């Protein structure tokens, strides 16, 4: 709430900064706007930037550092016995203090804990007040500074344009930082895992049974972390999904781009896109509550033994979800094939389907392959549908009627558990995540490469 108020105040200040800057420029121009180097609005923007940027930078730094600093102060003022606790206990103690300060009282606290909570709360309050003063002061100061600097020869437009360019560039680099963050966090934890479980056992082991000892003397805690069953499960379900999605998606795309009239296309295309917009949780529900039992009943009637969480159910529903991906990507590619090729084919007397099969499709093939690869990477990384519809036990099989588990399901079950974060069991989730990340990345790079290399340049 405080943050919101502060932001609104800053925004209000910025708008007034614009007005102030513009007015000053106009006054300096003294009726003849041509004497100014830039337009009056640029002087206004100049003032806004000076007002907003220093204040915003300080605000962000404060927000990220203040909790740590306050925590540090409170900790250093705790009695000696608290400071000598192990990091784990100390962390829990800090949490207690914070909860008390926030007004959540679980009772039974020693007086120094209550004191520490008081200190924490008053420090935070003082910090917030100081934040307001400093940030708004900086905003006002920036505005005054800018106003003083505005004069007729000031090249406001150049400064403004350059500043905006730098800001946009910084925004773009967030993507890079995010990638770096993902890779680093995954690598860090995965390396800790590989210190306990060798890489070869993980990548080539045939048994996945991730149990680690909760206590040192526990029996039956031998965990095996061989991920091959997970990989085969993922591949099986993805294969079923692609077997559904690729034919349906491709033929839908061909219909919409070649055969459908404009009105039909205008109706059908959005409807198919709706399939892409449905949350995957809903698909998972559908798979678990309707598709899987129906398949089970059909299997029983046919004399087959279908598991209640068969790979077929999950793969089928996943395929439905992926149809729009294949369909719209292929649609774009097929439309991009120049009409001249088609007309030439018709001119030779080919029917429409022959043209499609022999001229259009081969021309669009690289794009279609790229699209299919992207869809495969989507299928591999899909989580919610398989969490709800696929099984939990690792099963090394190629039979779609059995229950298999995938990489993503195991990641979820391992992390939503009660284990210490240090154990090999929880860390294996990061190792799995790393594998998933690398595989989907490779698929995407290959897809991009295929499209770029084999695409015919038509224009």
């Amino acid at each position: 709430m405080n943050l919101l108020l502060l932001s609104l105040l800053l925004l209000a200040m910025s708008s007034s900064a614009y007005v102030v800057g513009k007015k000053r420029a106009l006054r300096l121009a003294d009726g003849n706007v041509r004497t100014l180097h830039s337009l009056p609005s640029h002087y206004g923007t100049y003032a806004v930037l000076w007002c907003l940027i220093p204040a915003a930078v300080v605000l962000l730094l404060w927000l990220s550092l203040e909790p740590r600093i306050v925590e540090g102060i409170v900790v250093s003022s705790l009695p000696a016995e608290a400071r000598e606790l192990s990091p784990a206990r100390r962390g829990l103690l800090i949490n207690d203090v914070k909860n008390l300060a926030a007004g959540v009282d679980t009772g039974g606290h020693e007086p120094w804990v209550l004191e520490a909570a008081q200190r924490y709360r008053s420090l935070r309050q003082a910090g917030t007040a100081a934040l307001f003063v400093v940030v708004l002061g900086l905003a006002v100061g920036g505005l005054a500074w800018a106003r003083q600097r505005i004069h007729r020869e000031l090249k406001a437009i150049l400064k403004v344009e350059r500043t905006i360019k730098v800001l946009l560039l910084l925004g773009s680099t967030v993507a890079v930082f995010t990638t770096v963050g993902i890779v680093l966090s995954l690598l860090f934890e995965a390396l800790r895992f590989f210190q306990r479980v060798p890489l070869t056992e993980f990548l080539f082991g045939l048994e996945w049974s991730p149990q680690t000892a909760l206590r040192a003397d526990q029996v039956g805690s031998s965990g095996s972390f061989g991920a091959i069953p997970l990989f085969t499960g993922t591949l099986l379900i993805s294969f079923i999904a692609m077997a559904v999605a690729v034919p349906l998606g491709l033929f839908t795309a061909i219909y919409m781009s070649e055969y459908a009239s404009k009105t039909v296309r205008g109706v059908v295309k959005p409807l198919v896109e709706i399939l892409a917009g449905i949350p995957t949780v809903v698909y998972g529900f559908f798979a678990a509550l309707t598709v899987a039992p129906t398949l089970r009943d059909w299997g029983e009637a046919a004399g087959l033994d279908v598991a209640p969480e068969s790979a077929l159910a999950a793969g089928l529903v996943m395929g439905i979800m992926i149809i729009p991906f294949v369909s719209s990507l292929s649609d774009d590619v097929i439309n991009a094939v120049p009409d001249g090729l088609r007309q030439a084919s018709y001119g030779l007397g080919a029917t429409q389907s022959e043209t499609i099969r022999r001229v259009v499709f081969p021309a669009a093939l690289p794009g279609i392959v790229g699209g299919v690869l992207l869809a495969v990477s989507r299928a591999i990384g899909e989580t919610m549908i398989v969490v709800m519809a696929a099984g939990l036990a690792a099963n090394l099989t190629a039979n779609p009627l059995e229950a298999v588990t995938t990489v993503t399901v195991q990641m979820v079950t391992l992390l939503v558990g009660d284990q210490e974060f240090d154990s090999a069991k929880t860390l294996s989730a990061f190792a799995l995540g790393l594998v998933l990340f690398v595989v989907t990345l490779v698929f995407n790079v290959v897809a991009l490469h295929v499209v770029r290399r084999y695409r015919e340049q038509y224009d």
Partner: protein
Amino acid sequence: MTERKPFISEEQVLERLGQRHAAEKRFRFLCKLAVGIALAFLVLLFGDILYKGHKAFVQGHVRLPIHFDESVIDPRGMREREDLRGAGYLGLVRDALRERFPVEDRQERRELYSLVSSGAPFTLRDQVVEDPSLIGTTRDVWVATDDDVDMMLKGYLSLDLPEDQRRLSDRQLAWLGELDEAGDLGLRFNTAFFTQADSREPEMAGIAGAAMGSIYAMLITLALAFPLGVATAVYLEEFAPKNRWTDLIEVNINNLAAVPSIVFGLLGLAVLLFRSSPFGAAGGRVGADLDDPAHHHHRRPCGTPVGAAVDPSSGLRARGYAHAGRGAPRATPRPARHAHRHDHRHVPRPGRPPCS
């Protein structure tokens, strides 16, 4: 020019023509079939969800005549809010039930009381707090029934089991039958679904808490993803020179959009753990953070990984539209574009607004 003998005869051509047209018809049918199957799946999905879920919007209610007895609700007579909130409304509900169906022994009484939801007293409380003039009157109030009764009304309870395996006894069913005949039992619109948060009691559970959480997460995501995405798109389309660094940014954005969302979850988890226990993640239980009562701890980290996931795809999409919108400024003839620039009014416009 001498006539050349054709390679195949006219009859062969005509015959082949027939085959080719038949193949064309089959191909066209196949395409239409694919579209039909895809749309059928859509209809099936929506239909199934609606069919299975539509009954959640109604809830079993029973109408009871409640005496809003002042000696129970407000013995001090001062109409203080605390008094009104703390009164024993459960007694009022039970009195009304016993009045309707007199019972003697303990077992019968327990069965009678269990017909009504344990949230019924709260319904009465809220009514009295809002309108204290109810005190002293007798009104008919619709209160929620217990979840077993609700299931029976909706047809989900199997009644043809022997009594000791059923969830409702014969006596209870007889009472319910009487209520139904008098018009005091029925399914009414389930407002609790939208106004209540999680609950252990099925009939009192609602989505309000979860909806708030979703809205907060969405707002934070939007606040993060939209500016960053648009900034990236505008920069890459309008300002960026063609060098290695911008290529790197582009490749990174493409990759981020391809990463499965669960990996972003891992990133969020790693960041969350790092922030909440700066003295080392060792020993910090994953579960502990999920139980953190000060939930405001969560909202920011939750938004950031989601924001990071939405950001590249919205950045990609925004860039895609910037690509599309690129057509517009590119279509502007060169002299006009340069004149624009010199006019110092050149503001990069990403073209068509993102539609979806």
